[in-house]
């Protein structure tokens, strides 16, 4: 096609609107729903009944096939196949078509299409992250409402188990994308002085895959839910209701999204940094984002495969994880945690790196020891692949391996300590500019310290024999993923808000929300440490009277967190709509994104910048 595409109907006089212009979120949902329905009816009709009396296998097959049909239909309907189709037929997209895909002159419609402009994708990620945290947060409040009732039992065990499992997996996905999605997509290319990412169409793909993945997860709630907790251990997952297929599809599609984003981000950073931006002059935030996706790239295919095997055990009666058939549940545990441990660093590193990026700006002095920061990030990433079986100390799988894994896990505290060093070193003799991101640095240090030390207790095998599977573990990982991770993400939101929206985030609301979330958070998970130490197991919907007080404290804290997050939500909406218009560089920071004025042009820079120094040149020279 060689016609101009920017102004579809008017310019060319052609009566037929090209397909590429018709595809958007509505066609995606429509085509996905129709495909799912058609395949469902066909499968119901033509799939042969199973040879023995097996109640779930045929239904599993039907469910999985329908969900796969949904996925294919949705991705076709959003336009993911346009590029590959053109390439296969030998007629690649024209410049005008690429401009159209990049959302040139399209106004708000570009957010509802397969738009390749990284700034659009960044905003799309921001919105979906907020939706994910909203739903996950509501589920958390339901959990706490149940557990806050003396002895629990407010919500039916079946519904409760599904709420817990869905809350877990949704929050894991939300925390994985919370910094790398919005900030990694919107800000990162500008920060390295590029016009867009290396593979703009893959960028759009990574976002729309998440939307496609969400539907099977929602669908799952209506066909029995996810009754296994977010880790979906087999063999329990093998006897779970049909909703388990929704989990399997969700993970498989999300894994694709992560892998695509990982390839994109890595290539962009390695190949497209501005002239003069050597690795020594690359901002530490970039290192964080790259390390995070570089970890995800090997880890998520393993997760993908573990779920494929789980689906096969259910629908095709294989025995990968079924001891009676020659398999082993330990296989699942190993595969899951080989992903599961690196994944928590996928979550943590961008958030900490973002705060390391903000620290010099808000202390007006150089980042302390850039090299140690890089070593810390690299060390954590490398070691994180070697520690997974500390989640399996008590599984009985390989008692002889407990000691080596204890060693590697303890070792990870060394590079983690380096990150602390960089942060406190940057606070040393700085001129503190008190803003919400500044406060977030202190909150991170407090929360991560507690999270880290409680992690040391857990890494010790004899102590883990008491603590494993109790609420202590839940409190520990919330301190690290939420206390450190979410704190970094919220600070990133407020810090980069002016560049992403052109307006300042309302200062008062950011402070109020910060204090509510942080105080509420410490009350919540402090209470949870108490009941864990007292002996309350995880994932229970009712408990002995002994745990009443601790659970009440936790639930009250949770309500405070929720209030703080609602204030934040209001802040986002009101600041976006009528906040103070932001100057080009409100924080007087030195990274490249602050050299571009809002509204940011489609291709970011009129002239690509040349970099001559690292962005940490604060402070006065000694006379």
């Amino acid at each position, binding site marked *: 096609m060689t016609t101009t595409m920017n102004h579809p109907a008017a310019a060319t006089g052609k009566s037929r609107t090209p397909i590429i212009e018709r595809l958007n979120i509505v066609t995606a949902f429509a085509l996905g729903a129709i495909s799912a329905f058609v395949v469902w009816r066909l499968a119901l009709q033509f799939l042969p009944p199973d040879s023995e009396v097996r*109640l*779930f296998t045929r239904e599993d097959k039907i469910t999985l096939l329908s969900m796969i049909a949904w996925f294919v239909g949705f991705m076709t309907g959003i336009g993911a196949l346009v590029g590959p189709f053109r390439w296969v037929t030998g007629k690649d997209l024209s410049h005008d078509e690429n401009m159209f895909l990049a959302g040139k002159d399209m106004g708000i419609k570009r957010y509802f299409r397969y738009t390749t402009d990284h700034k659009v994708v960044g905003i799309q990620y921001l919105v979906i992250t907020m939706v994910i945290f909203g739903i996950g947060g509501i589920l958390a*409040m*339901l959990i706490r409402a149940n557990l806050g009732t003396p002895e629990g039992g407010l*919500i039916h065990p*079946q*519904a409760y188990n599904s709420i817990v499992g869905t809350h877990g997996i949704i929050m894991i996905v939300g925390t994985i994308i919370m910094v790398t999605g919005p900030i990694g997509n919107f800000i990162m290319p500008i920060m390295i002085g590029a016009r867009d990412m290396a593979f703009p169409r893959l960028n759009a793909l990574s976002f729309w895959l998440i939307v496609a993945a969400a539907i099977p997860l929602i669908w799952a709630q209506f066909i029995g839910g996810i009754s296994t907790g977010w880790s979906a251990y087999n063999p329990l997952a093998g*006897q*779970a209701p049909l909703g388990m297929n929704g989990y399997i599809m969700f993970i498989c599609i999300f894994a694709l999204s992560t892998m695509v984003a990982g390839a994109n981000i890595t290539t962009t950073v390695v190949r497209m940094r501005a002239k003069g931006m050597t690795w020594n002059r690359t901002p530490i935030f970039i290192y964080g984002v790259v390390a995070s996706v570089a970890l995800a790239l090997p880890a998520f295919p393993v997760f993908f495969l573990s779920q494929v095997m789980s689906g096969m055990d259910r629908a095709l009666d294989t025995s990968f994880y079924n001891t009676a058939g020659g398999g082993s549940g330990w296989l699942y545990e190993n595969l899951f945690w080989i992903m599961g441990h690196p994944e928590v660093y996928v979550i943590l590193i961008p958030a900490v790196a973002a705060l390391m990026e903000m620290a010099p700006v808000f202390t007006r002095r150089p980042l302390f020891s850039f090299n140690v920061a890089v070593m810390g990030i690299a060390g954590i990433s490398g070691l994180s692949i070697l520690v997974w079986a500390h989640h399996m100390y008590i599984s009985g799988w390989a008692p002889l391996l407990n000691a080596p894994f204890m060693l590697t896990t303890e070792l990870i505290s060394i590079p983690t300590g380096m990150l602390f060093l960089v942060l406190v070193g940057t606070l040393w003799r700085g001129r503190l500019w008190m803003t919400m991101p500044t406060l977030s640095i202190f909150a991170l240090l407090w929360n991560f310290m507690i999270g880290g030390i409680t992690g040391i207790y857990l890494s010790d095998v004899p102590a883990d024999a008491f603590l494993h599977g109790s609420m202590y573990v839940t409190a520990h990982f919330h301190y690290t993923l939420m206390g450190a991770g979410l704190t970094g993400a919220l600070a990133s939101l407020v810090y980069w808000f002016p560049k992403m929206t052109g307006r300042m985030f309302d200062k008062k609301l950011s402070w109020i929300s910060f204090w509510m979330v942080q105080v509420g958070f410490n009350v919540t998970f402090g209470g949870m440490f108490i009941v864990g130490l007292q002996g309350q197991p995880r994932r229970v919907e009712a408990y002995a009277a002994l745990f009443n007080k601790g659970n009440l404290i936790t639930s009250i804290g949770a309500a405070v967190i*929720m209030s703080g997050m609602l204030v934040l939500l209001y802040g986002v909406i009101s600041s976006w709509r009528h906040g103070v218009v932001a100057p080009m560089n409100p924080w007087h920071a030195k990274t490249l994104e602050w050299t571009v004025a809002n509204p940011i042009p489609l291709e970011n820079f009129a002239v690509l910048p040349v970099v001559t120094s690292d962005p940490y040149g604060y402070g006065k020279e000694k006379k």
Partner: protein
Amino acid sequence: MKRILAALATVVLGFGVIAGIGTYVAAAKNDSGLTSATAAGTFTAPDGKTYPQYTLNLNIYPNSTFGGHHGAGGGAHPDWVSYGLAGEHGEPLTEASTGTNFVVPAHSAVTITIWQYDAGETITNDFFAKVRGTVGNTATLVERYDTKTHTNATEAKTITQIPSDGVGHTFTIHGLADAKNQVFVSVPLPMSNGDEVTAAEEAGGFTRFPTKTTFTIITGDEGEYVWNCEFPCGDGTIARFGSAMSTMSYMSGHWIVKG
């Protein structure tokens, strides 16, 4: 000031949404309400103590087409095995609105009669083939009860266990180990004749000669416990503990000691 009020409004609205969702979830997924045991005089235990007596009659069916608390036609899963409330002679209470959550008074004797209409096989864990936790650790079994004439077709006998290869289901009460008493009662329920059960199912009904087991429990202090069948029968799933076994109101429910 306006911002603060608007922020406050967002918080209130947010909690409203949560409360709404929460109420829906708490109510919607609750299995059928509560059935109280029926008062029936007094009971003298072998050790001489007397207790107020209550009775509870239950049936176990090979599928849910009896209706009862699942609704006409058996509800969402008519082919799942299920407990259900029974009348005096083991007849299905098709209009029953509650089915598997029982409320019994504290410090009383509760006599439970279970008609077991399903077939059976060898139990996976023969710990549960023994009668445990009842008065005298015994139960009274009628291997063939005539549901048409309401009489015992075979003699009633006292049992302490049943053969492990002929178990239909169990009725096992257990609960939160707490400062209160730990409760554990487990009674195995023998299978009814397999051929008769199959023939009756094909004809769209249930066997005429189910087994009938009667036992008495002395309840302790107030507390909330659960009961479930400990002989898995959820075909097609791992260890057969899926489907009916993993869904409340089929083969599990609440056992509430109150009042």
